[in-house]
């Protein structure tokens, strides 16, 4: 009886595994995969939406594009996903990396298997990918954030940064660029960065960190949070307390609608973001162009697509010969347009 049950269960499992594979990849043409940072984040969901839209529009069959959201925003989870994509034999992987270096060995494996790697949102080491779909140039984002801090603080005073994790690639790049901009231009000499705090993209921790910033720096004027979870948590803390400290950064319009406004009752006068749907779309177009050989990832390559800033040219990442594709300048959300954008994403 036990044996029978065992056999029955094994057969069921095999059937389950087989049926999970369908619809299979059509090997006669190129196949694409998108790996986001993690499941459960509307931002990543919008990237996937843009990616899928383009895949459909370009006539890629349903089995030939795969969208994977790892269960947690960790490198381990992404490594697992990439390993399974390698064994499925996709032609191109677009990935928003959770760590700049830790994915290196698995991406080299993928490259050895003939898979073309594109990054979006958050880059890896340049030798591990062909090109990077940059949501907005690092300096453009940093410039926008510094100017916002300057404007909201009234040209002088203390400000703090509330980031995600201490090893988040894009947050660190923006923060470094912000520091460089404020150091190089005497216009910003009266702004003092008091601390970079890390809320790990957790509500509770971001709340603790925001409260700590308020307690530690009584003269604080502005908090700049270049991360969606952090900015929402900080906005809530400041707005609840009716604090005079104001907030700016990068956030999702739908999550921030409650907090954006010009009066004292709102904690965030304005903030920025790009359109994650467009970023996903750009990654999809870049993947297709790479797979079809229209671009190779070299600086100076161009390709056309059905997007606002088309044609796109691959430009050099500062200080290297590696390429990136810049989506456009960051978009500003304030009291005049937040209601409209909150409905979109």
């Amino acid at each position, binding site marked *: 009886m036990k044996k029978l049950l065992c056999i029955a269960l094994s057969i069921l499992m095999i059937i389950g595994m087989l049926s999970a594979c369908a619809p299979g990849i059509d090997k006669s043409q190129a196949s694409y995969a998108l790996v986001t940072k993690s499941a*459960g984040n509307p931002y990543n969901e919008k990237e996937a939406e843009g990616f899928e839209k383009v895949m459909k529009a370009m006539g890629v069959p349903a089995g030939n594009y795969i969208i994977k959201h790892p269960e947690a925003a960790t490198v381990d989870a992404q490594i697992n996903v990439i390993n399974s994509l390698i064994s499925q034999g996709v032609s191109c992987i677009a990935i928003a990396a959770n760590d700049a270096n830790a994915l290196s060995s698995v991406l080299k494996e993928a490259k050895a298997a003939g898979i073309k790697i594109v990054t979006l949102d958050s880059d890896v080491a340049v030798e591990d990918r062909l090109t990077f779909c940059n949501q907005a140039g690092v300096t453009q984002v940093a410039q926008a954030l510094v100017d916002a801090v300057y404007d909201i603080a009234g040209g002088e005073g203390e400000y703090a940064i509330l980031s995600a994790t201490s090893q988040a690639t894009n947050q660190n790049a923006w923060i470094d660029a912000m520091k460089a901009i404020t150091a190089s231009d005497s216009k910003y000499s009266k702004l003092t960065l008091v601390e970079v705090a890390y809320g790990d993209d957790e509500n509770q921790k971001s709340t603790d960190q925001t409260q700590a910033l308020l*307690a530690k720096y009584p003269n604080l004027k502005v908090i700049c949070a270049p991360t969606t979870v952090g900015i929402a948590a900080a906005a809530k803390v400041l707005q609840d*307390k009716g604090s005079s400290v104001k907030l700016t950064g990068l956030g999702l319009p739908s999550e921030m609608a*409650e907090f954006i406004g010009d009066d004292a009752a709102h904690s965030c006068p304005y903030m920025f973001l790009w359109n994650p749907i467009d970023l996903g779309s750009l990654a999809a177009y870049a993947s297709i162009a790479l797979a079809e050989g229209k671009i190779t990832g070299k600086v100076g390559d161009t390709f056309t697509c059905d997007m606002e800033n088309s044609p796109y040219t691959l430009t050099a990442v500062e200080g290297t010969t590696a390429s990136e594709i810049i989506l456009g300048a960051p978009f500003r959300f304030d009291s005049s347009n937040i209601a409209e954008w909150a409905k979109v994403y």
Partner: protein
Amino acid sequence: MKSFLRKLTGKHEVSLAIIMILMFVIIDILCGGTFHSFTNIKDIFRNNALTLLMSLGMLLVLLTGGIDISITGVLAFSGMTIGLMMKNGVTHNVFLLFLIATAIGTVCGLINGLIIAKGKVSPIICTLGAMYIWRGMAYIISGNAWASAQDVSGYSDFGKDGKIGPYIILGVAFILFIVMMKWSSFGRKVYAIGSNREAARISGINVDRVQIAVYTIMGALAGLAGALSVSIYASAQPNMQTGKEMDVIAACVIGGVSMSGGRGTVLGTLLGGIFYAIVYKALPLVGLDSIWQNLIKGIIILAVVVINVVTQRAMKRQNLARREI
């Protein structure tokens, strides 16, 4: 008077309280005297209300010799459910939403209890599965979206900074548990099962029923914590409070609850929870570099548990020596 003092110092809670007060004073000095402010203490409780609340349920579970690691999964599922109900305009009634979340938690807990007591599945395995199931359910129903501050606006006023809602829930829960564990037959049965399951069974205690009740109460508290989380953070996210079950277990253990069952008190759990909350609150304040904070947190927790065990042993030895004379 002397024997009263001796009795007092022999208690685990007292030594923990002394360590805690010492730590509080040191942190306060390090922060330049800002740590003991009313706002700060209020924030400590509010931002750790979920851990404190769920540690009560965890106390019961640990007392029976079990463990429940599915609590944050249940929290996410119940929190996400009511978040979506608000997002889709079903209801914004605070009381009703708290009730729904608690009810969902209760059912989740009941299922755990039934599987563990009747199915004789080990608690860690059962709740490990449940953790993934309820967390997964939270992802599925959310469709990878959040219920944002705008969606839960109005409801979130309950847990807003300055409102007393969360404190009342915490206060009532702790008083209820103190009474239940000290003076009800259910409380005594829980201790009895944890100290010696076989003896408890022979003496006529329905072990299965108590076990089911314990996990159901844990589930109810996790569901309630889900409602509270959405209210305090004004946002329902499917990945909310991931990993916090470890904080809850740690709070209990610091509070002197034995992982093998039978030993632990509500007061100790409260102290453990507050201790944990103070550490959480203090680390970003004392000027430590952010990347060091996890390491320091781990060291402090281990140190306190060790110090507490050592002082306990010393006190016991002293008491024994006195008795011999």
